[in-house]
């Protein structure tokens, strides 16, 4: 395959994506081919060295946002159907079926994300509440020592110190847990995206 044929094929395979994504991808590969040729390879070998076209297409799509991918998938299915009228009729007739399904799908994704963020938010709220009550308790305890009685004041200070200790103790685990959760959301996003990308093996 020559460089021009390769770029043509790639453009064709990515056709459902926005034009700037196609341009970025083709200029990246065309630059690599040119560099390989400059390095002493023949054009044919340079194209061959890029590897499997399916993998190139899949990897080009993985970093694209979900709405764009969904649109691309719909466009691809439309272009596969030669009869435009039939496609529109099917979309209209199937509306009661596909619309609730789509909404459910989006709602499930939303709920997962909201749950994760609420979990993170509440964890931080706990840390913050413990920290504030710790500091307030120490100040209040000192005041109580003078205006009420020494035992009450000391007891309050003791409780406040416990709060401070707990804050210090859970801050790092909470941070690590948040990091893990954010990684988990990234993993979910990739899994969801893979639904809209053709089922080909992906190495990275």
């Amino acid at each position, binding site marked *: 395959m020559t460089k021009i044929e390769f770029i043509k094929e790639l453009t064709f395979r990515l056709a459902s994506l926005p034009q700037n994504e196609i341009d970025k991808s083709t*200029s*990246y590969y065309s*630059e690599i081919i*040119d*560099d390989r040729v400059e390095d002493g390879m023949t054009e044919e070998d340079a194209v061959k*060295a*890029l*590897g*499997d076209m399916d993998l190139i297409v899949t990897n080009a799509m993985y970093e694209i946002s979900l709405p764009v991918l969904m649109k691309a998938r719909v466009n691809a299915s439309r272009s596969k159907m030669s009869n435009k009228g039939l496609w529109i009729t099917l979309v209209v007739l199937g509306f009661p079926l596909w619309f609730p399904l789509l909404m459910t799908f989006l709602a499930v994704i939303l709920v997962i994300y909201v749950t994760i963020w609420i979990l993170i938010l509440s964890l931080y709220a706990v840390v913050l509440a413990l920290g504030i009550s710790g500091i307030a308790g120490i100040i209040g305890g000192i005041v109580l020592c003078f205006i009420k009685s020494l035992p009450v004041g000391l007891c309050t200070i003791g409780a406040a110190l416990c709060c401070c200790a707990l804050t210090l103790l859970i801050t790092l685990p909470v941070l690590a847990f948040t990091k893990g959760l954010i990684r988990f959301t990234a993993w979910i996003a990739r899994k969801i995206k893979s639904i809209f990308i053709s089922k080909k093996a992906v190495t990275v």
Partner: protein
Amino acid sequence: MDIQLKRGFLEACVLAVLDRSDSYGYQLIKDISPCIEISESTLYPILKRLESGDMLSDYSVEHNGRLRKYYKITDAGREKIEDFKNEWKEIMSVYNFIMAKKESGENDKN
């Protein structure tokens, strides 16, 4: 190797190379491949992700009558390298823990 782990490694490798000097696609692959297996189609999404995370920027330079895209690391990219180094310390301590346990277990057997 685990896919997520490899992605993390590759991102760090790309940033490390760019931290030394600005570079372009093919050169990045040549620089990184002795250390870890990387192909053009693997590098592409990594560059894209780093770019969307503002960890690198790009500019074009004319070379032999065509344009070549150079990538430049940003401050956020340098921070990411530091994050990676710190994370690595944790991973190493876990590794040492696992290996120490295994060795002591083997010694016990003997």
